[in-house]
């Protein structure tokens, strides 16, 4: 077997993305590869992405949570569901999504404020969101009672396929839902045949 040539920077980026369980920032790639600037790192990722788009219908590179990730393409989801019957992930309940929506667009926001918007007590759902690491405590509000303030996490961005919170629909006045630009880019996942409660992999690693 002939010895393979030294890996190219693109190959290294491929391995880094594969091995990392959290989104990999361009800056990290720059650092690890000793590149001159972040632009070079982005260019390498783009090159790799083009290679995957050309040769693989199984995997893709997406930009999410402030970094890059290697993930499966939606088209192969049905087979993965068959593979991973056990690894299904419970979807969030409607109240939890509602509370999450409030945190997402008003962050940082305190529990009394969340309660006020929803008109009901949100203790249990916030507990749930904390457990799933979709939100976290970011401090205390300088208000009487000093309630905790919550904000969304990187896990949240990953779980919902967002590059950053700016990808969220604008909510001034009426809710303006962007033309799901991000979705289109990340591989248009029409929720075709719903393969049950398929599990997005948002394991926290460790």
């Amino acid at each position: 077997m002939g010895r393979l040539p030294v890996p190219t920077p693109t190959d290294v980026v491929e391995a880094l993305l594969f091995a990392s369980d959290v989104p990999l920032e361009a800056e990290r790639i720059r650092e690890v590869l000793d590149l001159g600037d972040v632009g070079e790192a982005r260019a390498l990722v783009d090159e790799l992405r083009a290679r995957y788009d050309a040769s693989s219908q199984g995997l893709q590179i997406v930009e999410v949570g402030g970094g890059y990730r290697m993930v499966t393409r939606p088209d192969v989801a049905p087979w993965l569901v068959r593979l991973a019957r056990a690894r299904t992930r419970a979807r969030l309940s409607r109240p939890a999504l509602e509370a999450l929506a409030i945190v997402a667009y008003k962050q940082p926001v305190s529990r009394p404020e969340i309660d006020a918007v929803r008109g009901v007590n949100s203790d249990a759902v916030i507990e749930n969101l904390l457990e799933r690491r979709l939100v976290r405590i970011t401090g205390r509000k300088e208000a009487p009672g000093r309630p905790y303030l919550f904000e969304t996490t990187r896990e949240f961005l990953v779980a919902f396929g967002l590059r950053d919170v700016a990808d969220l629909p604008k909510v001034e006045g009426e809710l303006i839902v962007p033309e799901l630009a991000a979705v289109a880019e990340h591989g248009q996942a029409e929720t075709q045949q719903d393969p049950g409660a398929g599990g997005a992999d948002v394991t926290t690693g460790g």
Partner: protein
Amino acid sequence: MSDESPNTLDTSRDLTLRVGGFEGPFDLLLHLCRTNEIDLTRLPVRTITDQYLAHLEAMEFRDLEAAGAYLVMAATLIYLKSKLLVPPDETQEEELEEDGLTLRLELEARLREYARVKALGEWLTQREAEQSLVWGRPGSTLPPPEEVPLEDLSVHLLERMLKRLIEEQTRQRPREVEPNPPSVVERMTMILSVLRDTWSLLFSSLTSGDRRRSEIVVSLLAVLELVRLGRIKTQQTELFGEIVIERQTTIPNGETARADAN
């Protein structure tokens, strides 16, 4: 909506099929508005109150706390309705006296806010569904953190830390770690400040997360004092049930806006 006959009670009966499917009083209210194609900036108090109450009658509640939230809204609506001026003749829009107007504006604003949150929640639901079709690697294949050696450790760092701690100790009295339980006055201020943002809150939310008896006692004293001063009203629908705290609606002239969140 103004030419809608106010007598829509019987149609609202048909809506009760979703009983229990609501996430709270705002959800129910929003549902009623959507079903009746009501403009969220011009809430018809009479119609909406009647429909809301009709719905409420048909609902079953799992727990008192959930019921409490719905009842507070009911109380608000009934209050609003009582503020309607001259019995409106069929052709005219209802008019509210000043108090009521303020309250209605606030209600509308909060309803619109809830509508936005709900829309965003639905958007998130869709994203969640899309993302459930995508898998990442099941775990990192990088060396675990504890195997990455620490840099720049030296005992001198520890020594310096300890020296500084000792110096600090000699310079000052031992510091308080746990804050004292808040005073009654502090708690009163807190309640009033929360009630500036929302018109009601649950007693349990004052102490939730901290079940120390002193907390509860202080909160209770604060509530009693505020009731005595006529700043708030309380309701307890059942013995040992949830206490709902509401502000007295004697709003000093025209102060309507919610305090800014930050």
